[in-house]
């Protein structure tokens, strides 16, 4: 790792991270602010909810019967939007953090300094991780304080930690996917469109699995399926196989990024 490069990258990408964190924090805070009124009107919402086609209920994953518990309500909002927003930012950041050096032709400057390719990858990856962890930590703290306030702290904090850990793992995975794509591209360029496309397609696969049980093979193609959303249940804990999925694929992407970048021709 190179400290100079790391510190520069950390500072450089701060604006995007702060903005994304702000959106996520606002979103979680707003979702929890309306929880009390939602809870008060649960019977009317339930009636309305069951008017919708069953496939729609399944597709959008509204576990309305769990809304008496703040975590049951929180999961509905969390699973939909937070990993999608933070995932989109993570994949774009992952794709940008290395490719911008090639795209702006500053790779020539960087690689003519006494720094190894492994150090470049390590510095960039560490920056990526810290930004993603930062957003997810803020999201968790907002969720924690919000859930605490609206439920008088009557919820299982450990479950919230586990839920957000899954959220963080999926962001890291998306960030690494973005990073890896630009490492293997012959002429790296920002792939914001492709990145957002990947998130939406994998999310759509998750919906497909829920709606049409027959398409279970899509399970392997969507990380969303590997988030355990049963946060309201008493025995909610980390599942080893889910952790192996996230950590295994992330680890593989990290190793492959090092391997490919070590021999990559930088065509600036």
């Amino acid at each position, binding site marked *: 790792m*190179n400290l*100079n490069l790391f510190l*520069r990258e950390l500072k450089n990408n701060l604006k995007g991270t702060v903005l994304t964190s702000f959106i996520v924090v606002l979103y979680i805070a707003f979702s929890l602010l309306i929880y009390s009124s939602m809870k008060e009107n649960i019977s009317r919402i339930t009636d309305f909810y069951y008017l919708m086609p069953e496939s729609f209920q399944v597709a959008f994953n509204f576990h309305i019967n769990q809304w008496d518990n703040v975590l049951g309500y929180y999961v509905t909002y969390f699973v939909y939007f937070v990993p999608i927003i933070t995932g989109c930012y993570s994949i774009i950041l992952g794709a940008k953090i290395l490719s911008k050096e090639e795209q*702006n*032709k*500053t*790779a*020539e*400057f960087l*690689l*003519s*300094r*006494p*720094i*190894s390719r492994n*150090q470049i990858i390590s510095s960039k990856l560490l920056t990526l991780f810290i930004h993603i962890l930062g957003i997810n930590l803020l999201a968790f703290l907002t969720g924690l304080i919000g859930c605490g306030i609206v439920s008088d702290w009557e919820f299982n904090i450990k479950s919230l930690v586990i839920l957000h850990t899954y959220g963080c793992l999926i962001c890291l995975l998306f960030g690494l996917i973005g990073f890896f794509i630009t490492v293997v591209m012959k002429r790296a360029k920002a792939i914001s469109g492709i990145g957002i496309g990947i998130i939406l397609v994998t999310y759509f696969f998750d919906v497909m699995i829920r709606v049409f049980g027959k398409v279970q093979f899509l399970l392997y193609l969507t990380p969303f399926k590997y988030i355990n959303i049963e946060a309201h249940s008493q025995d909610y804990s980390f599942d080893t196989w889910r952790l192996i999925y996230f950590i295994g694929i992330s680890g593989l992407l990290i190793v492959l990024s090092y391997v490919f970048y070590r*021999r990559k*021709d*930088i*065509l*600036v």
Partner: protein
Amino acid sequence: MYAIETEGLTKFYGKDRGIIDLDLRINEGEIFGFIGPNGSGKTTTIRLFLCLLFPTSGSGKIFNYDIVKDSPRIKKNVGFIPTEVNYYENMTVKELIEYSASFYNISLDRHFDQLIDALDLDLARKIEDLSMGNKKKVAVVQSLIHNPRLLILDEPTSGLDPLIQNHLFDILNKQNEKGTTIFFSSHVLGDVEKFCHRVAFIKDGRIVNEDDINSLKKKLLSRISYRIKEGKDDITLQTPGIISLEKNKNSTSFLYKGELSILLKELSQLSIENITITEPDLEEVFIHYYESDSREEDN
């Protein structure tokens, strides 16, 4: 030990040629000119030295370290000025130079102040606001702050006005006097001629010749163009060494190899309105350089 040593260094971009079988040996302390037309493989060679590219085959060493395996170690002792300067646009000049210095774990000292003064650089300006010439000056400063043992220069004079070019040559000569080896890539023959000790010519990815600067000078050509005053007669020039003569009304143009004073003496007999003596383009130089070389070999 050579400063730079390559053996059969070859680079292909897929099927496209980069450089082929490059064999170079550059001594420490030497100013080595690397000259060739655009697309001949000069920048590819430099990018292989800096490990931005990986060789398809062959090998290279800088100060006896392998250019692939020992790249970071090599770069501690290398300064580099690129053809086209692309730095972090949102940085100021000072931030950029400090950032560059941080990789060498050095602080900016008197040597840095002298460079800034010599090149008249405004440290507070942002890189994005700099002209091409000023960016080049930044490149010069950042390449020298760590007192490198080897300077790799890729078309360093492009974008610089003649006054700054002279400053640059002064700075480089002083650096060379300290023992720094200079690898000077250019397509401007004049720059190489006045600055380098030895020269290699590269064409279509291959080294076609290496010469010391004195024997190069003997083979170099000048393009002479003059116009005769209206109504005055031109003559057939008798001075030997005139090649590719072209006449058009009052204008005459040709390539000349030999003592300029002899030619000028003959030309002084004419009523010349204006005369220019320039460096021919590199393609012309190559054609006549190799013609004369092969003739010498035949004899």
